[in-house]
């Protein structure tokens, strides 16, 4: 019997994928936000030892627009 296969195929195309589409729309409609003001908090931007790559001061997914270094945003 192919009933279950047809059921899950239907659920895939009528519920699951449209659900993804709706969430895509919702996510894409985000408003651009300015990067937060830099405050040199002690409990953030921890550098106990240098990272083993680059200059040792940048995280792996570093993005200079939104990730300040311990000394502040890079110019």
């Amino acid at each position, binding site marked *: 019997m192919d009933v*279950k*296969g047809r059921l899950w195929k239907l659920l895939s195309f009528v519920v*699951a994928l449209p659900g993804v589409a709706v969430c895509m729309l919702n996510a894409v409609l985000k408003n651009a936000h300015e990067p937060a003001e830099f*405050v040199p908090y*002690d*409990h*953030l931007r921890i550098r106990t030892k240098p990272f083993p790559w680059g200059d040792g001061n940048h995280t792996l997914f570093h993005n200079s627009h939104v990730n300040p270094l311990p000394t502040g945003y890079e110019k």
Partner: protein
Amino acid sequence: MAHQAHAYHMVDPSPWPLTGATAALLMTSGLAIWFHFHSLLLLYLGLTLLLLTMIQWWRDIIREGTFQGHHTPPVQKGLRYGMILFITSEVFFFLGFFWAFYHSSLAPTPELGGCWPPTGINPLDPFKVPLLNTAVLLASGVTVTWAHHSLMEGNRKEAIQALTLTIILGVYFTSLQAMEYYEAPFTIADGVYGATFYVATGFHGLHVIIGSTFLAVCLMRQIQYHFTSEHHFGFEAAAWYWHFVDVVWLFLYVSIYWWGS
């Protein structure tokens, strides 16, 4: 000609457990050497050996099961127990990271500002990309179920379609997460918030990649007629693993992304 008087599989001697253990040694020591002496050689050797071990070991299992018929019902039962036990061990692995997260977030220390999220942390909006990620993984759980029923009903074409769709959704999740990692205003070095967030979601992302790869191997095997409507345990194991990855995400989403914001 010798015949076995039992239904079990007495496996032929194999070098892959040894090469796997050697790879583990090379990767662990390689990581330490990289941290302290800046050489990546040992780590690369270990990763290469790991890749070769996995390819050849699992290739041999496919040969033994699909081509040589060694996976009788009792053998398959043992493989099922094995996969369930493995996934259970992975559950405990993630439990540790959730423990770390709740330990830190339920009683935030004065150094963080006595609040959660800590002072200076702007968490991601849980109802934007994280919600999309949730929809993507839930949808992939539906499509992998469609694939399974297609397989059981002997519907070759739809099994291939559904499995392909599942893998596409998995890759989509991974690319969305990579983008989120790049765009996030907080990093792994941002105190215990960053540490718990990136270690927990990072290991989850690695499991999504592993699960997507497992499903992709199943797709290749399905295309090459390895699976029958009655016997397709490799696919079932991949589907169980995929559902596990989905459930871990749901816990991550509710705990870290939603409650933790």
